[in-house]
């Protein structure tokens, strides 16, 4: 693990967030939009976990603490909460897309809209 520069997870998280915004803004298919939101969630979760890393740290699961630093435990708890919330959100969004397809027959965000202006 020593030869990976410490910034690498943050760069990966930023790249995930940037690509997911590109997908959300420019892809018209509703399923791809939901995949973009899932990728945004993954990027933010990766950012949260990687900000807790301390170089050379051990996992925060010991009672008798061994020598050396320990990785921060709180961001891991935040990430678990966020993963659970995003599962619920994605399930809800997919349900609504099923209903939109049932009513309008289209999965395109421009063709299936009924409200504008």
């Amino acid at each position, binding site marked *: 693990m020593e030869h990976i520069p410490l910034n690498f997870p943050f760069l990966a998280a930023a790249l995930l*967030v940037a690509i997911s915004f590109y997908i*959300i803004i420019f892809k018209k298919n*509703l399923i791809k*939009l939901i995949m973009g*939101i899932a990728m*945004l*969630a993954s990027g*933010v979760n990766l*950012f*949260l976990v990687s*900000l807790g890393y301390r170089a050379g740290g051990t996992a925060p699961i010991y009672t008798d603490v061994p020598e050396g630093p320990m990785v*921060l435990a*709180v*961001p891991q708890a*935040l990430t678990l*909460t*966020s993963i659970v*919330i*995003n599962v*619920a*959100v994605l399930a*809800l*969004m997919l349900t*609504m*897309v099923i*209903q*939109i397809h049932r*009513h*309008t027959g289209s999965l395109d965000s421009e063709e*299936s*809209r*009924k*409200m504008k*202006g």
Partner: protein
Amino acid sequence: MDTLITHSSILIIGILLLAAFLTPLVGRVSERARNILVIGSLAFAAALVFALARDISFNGIHVYALGASSPGLATPEGFMVPVRIVLEVDGMSILMGIIWSIVALAATVFSLSHMSKETGQTRFYTLVLLMVAGGFGMMFTGDLFNLFVFLEITSISGAALIASRTRFADTQEGGFKYIVISSVASLMVLFAIGVLYSQYNLLNVGALAQAMQYTMLDRMALVILIAAFAMKLGAVPVHMWLSDAYSVAPVSVTVLLIAASQSCMYALMRTCFTLYGVTADLTAVGWIIIVSGILSMFIGVTMAIRQTDITRLIAYNCICESGFMLVGIGVGLAVLADPGALAAYGTTAISGAIFHMINHALFEGLLFLAAGAIFYRIGTRDLNQMGGLGHTMKFTAVFFLLGALASSGIPPFNGFASKILIYESVYQFSPILTIIGIFVSIITLAVFIKVFFSAFAGAPLPRYKDVKEVPRTMIAAMAVLAVMIILFGLFPGLITDWIIRPATDALLDQAAYINAIVGAIP
């Protein structure tokens, strides 16, 4: 009784969550028992909110550490920072709690007859209780990640409630837009919380405010938080989801959504005033919020006058009224560092914005409930199809007129009281803002004259000759809001001195907020 008050902040959230989980079970037994459970738990929560408000006015900020050996113990022995989820209720939070409890009660009583012909009512009421619990959590929490969790709870239940009538196509579209917007905004809020945590290792708002140093990363977090909360509350230019979502939802849900977006405005105010406070250079932030407010006022009302769908029109009016609040808050933020200007007009601007928040919940709620009453009787929301309904639906017409006059800022109703606070104080900052505000209020009156004429006035149309007045529960819910509008209009000094001034002072007093958590730590 004292124990009840000490634990009241978590009891309010906990009782509502428990009632939400019990509602499907009780709903299998009987409908009447379920209705009694829902209304009873909301009434109990409202009573606790008022008791807590009285306690806060006597004893100051109420702090509750979840799971600690004693409720006020935010930082236990041997710890240097607050370690548990801490609920911190000050004057501003309890004002939002009062608004939310009144609005939730009125909306739920209205939906007792409005949703009486729908299927799946048990699930509807479960989601309503979850949303109300989430809203209270957002208003009472003193911890950033807890804010994110309750923000998501409110958004998910809100989106499910918007899309609850699956037989229509536009409700699904409105619900989908709402959940996409909420999900992106909440993930960005989580990103900003991560940035703040990475710098200071703290999630508690009071402790973070004390440790805040306004580095470049903190500024980025502030930008993301402001943009995300602005999108959730419907500021221009990220407002376009609001008219889609609010117009298609069942109107009791729309009333709850209005108060939920105001709790996002509360979160924005907490971030700017308490979390960052005077360590940040808030003139730039203030001006961004002022510009967003001006655009909201103007674009909201000019789009409203074009609409032919009654709830979509009222939703655009919501955007316009949010603009007034944003202008008041922006002026208060811009002069926060300048004590002379703050005492002269900054406090009044913030008071006007906060007063307008409670008035906005009342009169927009009344407008939406009246529009829902029309939809309940004639089955359409299209203004082109309506006419002469005022002959038979007299109460609805009077309540709609009351809400319309209050919204346009016509004396002696409550809209005028809060708007004159905003006009007079913002004038000292920059006269052009007041001129735009008055102009926008006049166009708001024009918008509602259009609606009143199309829907209620005119000769009775033959196709609506069998339309009767709406059931009594709906009239009772609208009457509660109408009576509050008239009372707030006739006694503005009373409301300002008892509720609004303490809230403004609590919002501007960052030191008291920090001291309640961190205290006299050596």
